[in-house]
């Protein structure tokens, strides 16, 4: 019996980086995944164009263009995070995934890491789009602002993008259903924003719980992250990211795979 037990310990379980590469590949090798990424890029390029040709000359700065190029990342990348989880259930590939990797928590970790890698890659593409826009602006004499993006802005936009994908993954795990997860991912924060703005009593709470408000300083070229702003961000993310992620993880670990 001992010899048998040793033999099932080898070969070793796939390493986390292997699983991350696999999950990354699964995010981009389907038609849905590819089109989402194409739209992320197109959104970025289009909005850089808007800044270049429609914004007042004073606003045609590099940080503004970079910020504009990230619109697709902010809106569509979380959808890819949702799909990376819900696709496994709607297409029923979870059957294969969890048969090959029974440690489901490792698959979840790999999905989160893959989402972070993808967010970083998307940011790099956005930055290239922004700098291309700036170069075009120079050629067409539509801007003479600087070429730099503050490193703090690069860091905060990366954080924002990663948090976005992760909440997508978290919502996906919580609902395990593509349309439900996507609709609620967008609807709940919007509903909250509307409530926060219309109901005076909720306004104070919204400053801490409305992700649109708490993340605003991160993506804004003029924004500044004060200690209070960080605290608000942390509280809102605890509600919109950590809570669904924790409940969703429990659900995925326990859910019977059919």
């Amino acid at each position, binding site marked *: *019996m001992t010899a*048998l*037990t040793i*033999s*099932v*310990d*080898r*070969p*070793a*379980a*796939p390493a986390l980086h*292997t*699983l991350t*590469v*696999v999950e990354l*590949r*699964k995010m981009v*090798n*389907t*038609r*849905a995944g590819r089109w989402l990424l194409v739209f992320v890029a197109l959104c970025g390029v289009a909005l850089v164009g808007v800044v270049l040709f429609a914004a007042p000359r004073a606003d045609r700065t590099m940080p503004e263009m970079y910020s504009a190029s990230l619109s697709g990342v902010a809106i569509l990348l979380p959808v890819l995070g949702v799909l990376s989880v819900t*696709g496994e259930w709607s*297409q*029923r*590939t979870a*059957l*294969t995934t*969890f*048969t*090959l*990797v*029974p*440690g489901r928590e490792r698959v979840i970790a790999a999905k989160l890491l893959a989402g972070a890698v993808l967010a970083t890659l998307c940011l790099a593409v956005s930055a290239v789009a922004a700098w291309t826009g700036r170069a075009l602006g120079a050629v067409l004499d539509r801007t003479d602002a600087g070429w730099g993006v503050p490193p703090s802005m690069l860091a905060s936009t990366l954080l924002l993008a990663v948090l976005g994908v992760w909440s997508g993954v978290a919502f996906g795990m919580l609902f395990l259903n593509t349309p439900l997860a996507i609709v609620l991912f967008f609807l709940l924060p919007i509903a909250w924003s509307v409530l926060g703005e219309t109901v005076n009593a909720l306004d104070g709470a919204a400053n801490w719980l409305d992700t649109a408000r708490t993340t605003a300083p991160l993506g804004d070229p003029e924004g500044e992250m004060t200690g209070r702003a960080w605290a608000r961000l942390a509280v809102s993310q605890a509600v919109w990211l950590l809570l669904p992620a924790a409940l969703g993880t429990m659900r995925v670990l*326990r859910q*019977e*795979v*059919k």
Partner: protein
Amino acid sequence: MIEADHLTKRYGDATAVQDVTFRCEPGTVTGFLGPNGAGKSTTMRMICGLTPPTSGAARVLGVPYRRIANPGRHVGVLLDAAAQHSGRTGRETLALSAHVLGVERERAERLLREVGLPATAARRRVGGYSLGMRQRLGIAQALLGDPRVLILDEPANGLDPEGIHWMRTLLRDFADRGGTVLLSSHLLREVEAVADRFVVIVGGRIVAQGDKRELLGSSGGTLVRAVDPLGLENALKDAGLAVRRAADGSLTVPADSETVGRVAAKTGAVLLELRPAGEGGLEELFLSLTAPEPKETPR
């Protein structure tokens, strides 16, 4: 080796699987049979650690499936050929699994050809595959890690006759090389042709299990057909045997074929047929075991 040890699965008040115990030894093909909703798939999912049993346990290669570090390298599993991402190509699907298992990409390519998915088919999206092609892809995936155990749920579904023959040969060779196969199927004749042992489950309970010979041989009696049925019937009755005559003139006798043959030889009857009774074989057994039970209500 696969062991199911008093596996039970309840969903609320409904019991899907009740106290299922069986073993599959290396070198054998075990046919897992039962009507729709009998609990075959649920049992197989419990063996593969995808469904937690309410009580009982299952072991593969001596340990619970989830204890195997890289299970795909020891156990080939195909639970549902339709459960593949329709937006990926066959080749990409297999390449992903090869990456997880840590086997060479070249092996995936070779397996695709071996299961009958040539390059043109492998480049197409799985969404455009027929069920038979998905089964072939699923088999390639199950074989990818060069496993010692195969757990296949309805692998012959949707395959053409050539494909069914191919599958039968593949499973027989696999077992003859010392592998363990657990195979569920509705295609009784295919299972009968390949399996050494059967486990029959009805309404979540095992109603019969054992060697092919034990199960099919026990249906009893000998069927004999002679040019002169009446003459033989009388001779058999004279020999003190009970005889039942069918409309086509064939006689069923509750005795072994040697006894019946000797009586025929003594009277000089010209025989057209002499064989164990029960033409249906597995099918007859299956129907006799499943008929009295009402169909389980679907959950």
